[in-house]
């Protein structure tokens, strides 16, 4: 059985955090202590497994991305009116850093979407903040955690699965946002419409995001209708809606 000191030494070696003295000790023990060397070799295998697993996961992601790109009509890759499903996430960071928006001045629905969809709806429904104690895993907690860590592909998958057994407005809101983030606009529209039709909660944000879905898919007419409704309210979305409506018009 390896002791904590050895484990710590090995972990520090792989994290490149060994001090000079520790490096000397490490090298000597690698030459003389077979059990210690076996521990190092085992750690190497495990890290290799983690690396390979990560590569496979990213390969799957690229394969699924390729499928969505293939669905676009020819010639749309570069100048299509649809954005990739990570656009919104990238825009948040880039806009704040570079202020690039002044670079483009078009009022196309696509660009309006990019301007106004600054971030997905926050998860205010289920906290996933962790202390030191492990959090028990369940489909529900995994879905919220995936959303919190911005893994929207995974969140959409898990929330869709959850919807089969339990319907709740918060989950629908996050599912709609996940779908919007990954470019599944029709699904997102359906989520927000269901939220509006079946529940009394979250009507205003649902209308706001639904109007953005319409904008993203180029359906300016429906976006205008939805924004007008929102603009007539006296709550937080009204100002944004009026502003956007002006631009759509």
């Amino acid at each position, binding site marked *: 059985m390896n002791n904590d000191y050895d484990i710590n030494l090995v*972990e520090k070696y792989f994290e490149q955090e060994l001090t000079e003295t520790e490096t000397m000790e490490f090298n000597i023990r690698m030459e003389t202590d077979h059990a210690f060397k076996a521990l190092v*070799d*085992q*750690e*190497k*295998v*495990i890290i*290799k*497994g*983690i*690396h*390979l*697993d*990560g*590569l*496979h996961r*990213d*390969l799957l*992601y*690229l394969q699924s*991305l*390729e499928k969505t*790109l293939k669905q676009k009509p020819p010639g*749309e*890759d570069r*100048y*299509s*009116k*649809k*954005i*990739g*499903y*990570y*656009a919104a*996430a*990238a*825009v948040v*960071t*880039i*806009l704040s850093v570079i202020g*690039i928006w002044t*670079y*483009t001045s*078009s009022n*196309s629905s*696509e*660009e309006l979407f990019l301007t106004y969809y600054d971030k997905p709806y926050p998860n205010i429904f289920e906290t*996933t*903040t*962790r*202390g*030191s104690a*492990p959090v028990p*895993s369940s489909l529900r907690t995994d879905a919220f*955690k995936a959303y*919190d*860590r*911005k*893994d929207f*592909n995974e969140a959409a998958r898990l929330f869709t699965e959850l919807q089969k057994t339990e319907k709740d407005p918060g989950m629908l809101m996050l599912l709609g946002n996940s779908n919007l983030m990954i470019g599944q606009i029709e699904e997102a529209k359906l989520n927000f419409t269901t939220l509006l039709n079946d529940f009394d909660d979250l009507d205003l944000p649902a209308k706001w995001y639904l109007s953005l879905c319409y904008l993203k898919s180029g359906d300016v007419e429906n976006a205008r209708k939805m924004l007008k409704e929102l603009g007539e309210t006296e709550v937080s979305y009204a100002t944004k809606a009026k502003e956007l409506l002006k631009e759509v018009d």
Partner: protein
Amino acid sequence: MRCYGLPLYAFIIKRNIMTQDEIITKIKNGGQAELGVVYETYREEFLHWIMKEYKCSTDDSQDIYQLTILVFYDNIKNGKLEHLVSSVKTYLFGVGKNLVMEWRRKSGRSTPLDQERWLNDYAMEESDNAPTEQMVHAARNALSKLGEPCRQLIEMFYYGKKSMEEITEELHYKNAETAKNQKCKCMKRLRKLYEEEKTRTLIETPYEQ
């Protein structure tokens, strides 16, 4: 010039608004979203080039491009690629060319590219004291049994090369110390699971050892 379709980030890369080093930093600090942006940015040009230059089929070209992007991404994450003397595009074309040559040399022109196999070989080649494929397979099995949030944390740290501060923020831990303690606990569990997997593998395939 207006940006009509590509995500804005891709547009910025294309128009050289970001320097090559800034692109690398962005990818290094990012995740799958950034990977996807780079993928889409150079996809059309790369596929067109590789199909024309090496007479690859559409499917093979896409497979090669996906592996090329992964190599690029992996090299950035591992700190092997910190500065580019040329452009990202030139770098990707270089990786792609080597990949095609290597694949054709090993498998011949008529054999389709096996991405899974290629990725395994790529990952295994990096070690001096190479562990067997079976051992790494056992490690992957152990990882799959680890559960969340451990798997995510471990992968962010060892594969994504995220700092404890970044992990704390992304996975909502109280602070970096808590995240580090959690990582140690997760690794302890993973080592135990690996031991079990290894034993199971030994029992199931005794003659291959």
